[in-house]
């Protein structure tokens, strides 16, 4: 991008500057640290100049928005055409309580739904299962059957809004509940838009909400990808997620590399099923964390688009440009929220959200200030949403595309991200691929090492966390926390018991048998699961059959 001769001259001049002007300043005012690093521990130079990006080729490496390799953005007009979707992750207690929260958020101007399920639901247990003790409604909403889903979505225009559901092991069942709810209202499945997270690989790697061993889990994922390709052209059957990898303590480049490696693994699995790459690749979507290191995060998003585009076109032979484009949802980093002086989190979230926007996110969730303490209160979640609205409407950063493109620092970081991710791809390959690497504990160990390194830096005050290891105040907490309906659990269990009594149990038995048959004979599981859900078989019943057929995964323990 830069003239080689000029870059050489800049390099020489930079050396001169370091030896004279900088040295003179350093002798009087030493720098604050001997070495400066990104939050991921990567070295950062004092100054970036054209010689740091001398090999960058504008057409090869950056190009134009909406064109290969999409470094500058997946769409030709980006936020000048349409703002990102403001999608707040929400769910707690009963379906009734969460339905009320959804309506509140929509009234306040959010533009997409995002459903958080409670832990029993995420593990495929009904609310009254013994394994679910104490966990009802704590981390999200409890959905044990189609009945709960109908209540949850009551009054929500499913033909107009898109819905993202954070659900993984039981994704096929929960998705079926959503589809049947819409169809019972006369909305055909082909018009439904939304996303199921359905990314099982990162569960083994980081979030740990797996149920089955990797092989049947991957089969279920490919079943849903195939179903979407055939029946639901507006749905994203998977959201390949780095968010949880980062929250578990990875560095930025680990998040990037492990997520894309997972993505390639899904592509390969779908190709093995015999699907055409351009039939499913345009509906793959991504989900990244947006952490504190502003420029490193922006570089991560830009590198992600470039790596994906190159692999999809050159390695997997996709022809449709939509198969080459990486589109992503971002969420501000929950692990950066502090329980101490929680109002400070508003500022952290605002800066992180700005990085997501400058990195070209398609959809964004902003965390609420109280989330290191509890599920968000209405006021906290409103401020979080307002933060996005302020960025969208007041800062004017949306006026031009990829405004940091061409920054020597951001381009150098973007290049380094891509190189280091490629290095990880080679290591994963040498371990036999993503699933063997999971079985060997490779990712888990890499992440645990990075998390521990970071904690040591915080313990030693090498990294300052305002209000935690510096600027500490002893003050009582002054923000109101969410109170849940204390009767919620009993109401949910009563509803579930009544459902089991009053539904057509013969039909339930018949459809569950079909689920078992498909699990055994390899037919796409989505169809029998849809029938079972429509007969009001519960989540626990359907997942129970699959648990029996597929077995359960236990991970080797490391720390």
């Amino acid at each position: 991008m830069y003239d080689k001769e000029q870059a050489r001259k800049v390099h020489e001049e930079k050396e001169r500057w370091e030896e004279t002007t900088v040295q003179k300043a350093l002798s009087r005012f030493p720098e604050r640290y001997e070495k400066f690093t990104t939050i991921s521990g990567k070295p950062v130079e004092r100054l970036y100049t054209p010689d740091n990006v001398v090999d960058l080729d504008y057409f090869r490496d950056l190009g134009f928005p909406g064109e290969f390799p999409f470094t500058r953005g997946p769409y030709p007009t980006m936020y000048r055409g349409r703002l990102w979707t403001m999608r707040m992750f929400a769910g707690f207690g009963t379906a009734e309580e969460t339905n009320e929260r959804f309506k509140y958020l929509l009234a306040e101007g959010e533009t997409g739904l995002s459903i958080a399920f409670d832990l029993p639901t995420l593990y495929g247990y009904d609310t009254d299962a013994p394994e679910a003790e104490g966990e009802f409604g704590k981390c999200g909403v409890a959905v044990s059957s189609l009945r709960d889903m109908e209540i949850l979505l009551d009054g929500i225009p499913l033909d107009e809004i898109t819905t993202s559901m954070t659900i993984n092991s039981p994704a096929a069942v929960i998705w079926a509940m959503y589809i049947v709810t819409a169809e019972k209202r006369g909305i055909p499945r082909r018009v439904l838009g939304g996303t199921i997270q359905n990314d099982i690989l990162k569960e083994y790697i980081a979030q740990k909400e797996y149920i089955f061993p990797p092989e049947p889990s991957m089969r279920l994922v490919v079943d849903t990808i195939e179903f979407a390709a055939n029946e639901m052209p507006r749905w994203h059957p998977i959201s390949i997620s780095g968010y949880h990898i980062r929250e578990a303590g990875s560095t930025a480049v680990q998040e990037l590399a492990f997520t894309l490696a997972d993505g390639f693994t899904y592509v390969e699995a779908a190709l093995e099923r015999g699907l055409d790459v351009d039939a499913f690749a345009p509906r793959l979507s991504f989900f990244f964390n947006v952490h504190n290191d502003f420029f490193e995060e922006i570089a991560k998003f830009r590198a992600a688009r470039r790596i994906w585009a190159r692999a999809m076109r050159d390695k997997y032979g996709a022809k449709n440009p939509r198969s080459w484009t990486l589109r992503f949802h971002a969420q501000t980093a929950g692990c950066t929220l502090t329980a101490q002086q929680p109002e400070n989190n508003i500022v952290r979230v605002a800066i992180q959200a700005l990085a997501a926007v400058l990195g070209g996110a398609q959809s964004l969730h902003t965390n609420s200030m109280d989330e290191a303490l509890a599920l968000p209160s209405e006021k906290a979640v409103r401020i979080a949403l307002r933060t996005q609205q302020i960025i969208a409407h007041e800062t004017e950063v949306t006026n031009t595309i990829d405004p940091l493109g061409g920054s020597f620092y951001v381009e150098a970081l973007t290049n380094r991200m891509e190189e280091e991710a490629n290095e990880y791809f080679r290591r994963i390959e040498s371990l036999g691929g993503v699933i063997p690497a999971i079985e060997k504990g490779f990712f888990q160990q890499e992440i645990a090492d990075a998390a521990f390194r970071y904690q040591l830096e915080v313990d030693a005050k090498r990294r300052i966390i305002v209000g935690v290891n510096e600027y500490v105040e002893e003050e009582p907490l002054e923000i109101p926390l969410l109170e849940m309906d204390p009767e919620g659990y009993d109401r949910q269990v009563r509803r579930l018991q009544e459902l089991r009594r009053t539904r057509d149990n013969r039909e339930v038995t018949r459809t569950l048998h079909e689920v078992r048959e498909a699990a055994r004979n390899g037919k796409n599981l989505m169809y029998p699961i849809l029938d079972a859900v429509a007969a009001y078989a519960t989540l626990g019943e359907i997942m129970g059959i699959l648990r029996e057929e597929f077995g359960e995964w236990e991970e080797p323990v490391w720390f």
Partner: protein
Amino acid sequence: MASSRKVRVLVAKPGLDGHDRGAKVVARALRDAGFEVIYTGIRQTPEAIAEAALQEDVDVVGLSILSGAHMALVPKIMRLLKEKGLNDVLVLVGGIIPDEDVPKLKALGVKGVFGPGTLTTDIIAFIRRELNLDTEEAPKAA
């Protein structure tokens, strides 16, 4: 307990919560500080945790819970530990614990509750103090 052996710590994750970053970081910090650490892995039942505490003959049990299920799980674990005669084990809880629940947990016999942002050095110092360990030496049970 024998006076010559290392202090033994069980780090455990009860319930369905899979967020194991904190548990692993604390386990490793304690190990680096000279403790003998046993980590249970995730999704452990209260029964399995109490049994592991007994079998491993531990001096300290650290429970990590971020899901909000602590008021259902911790009382059960405390009861099971007592039933097994483990009355002297130092029990600590870490995770997302609202202020109002801290006194309730302490009334059950939990000695320390550590929320988000706790430095590992503070947890180590707390254990040493509670077990009357000589801070100059590697931790030995008194």
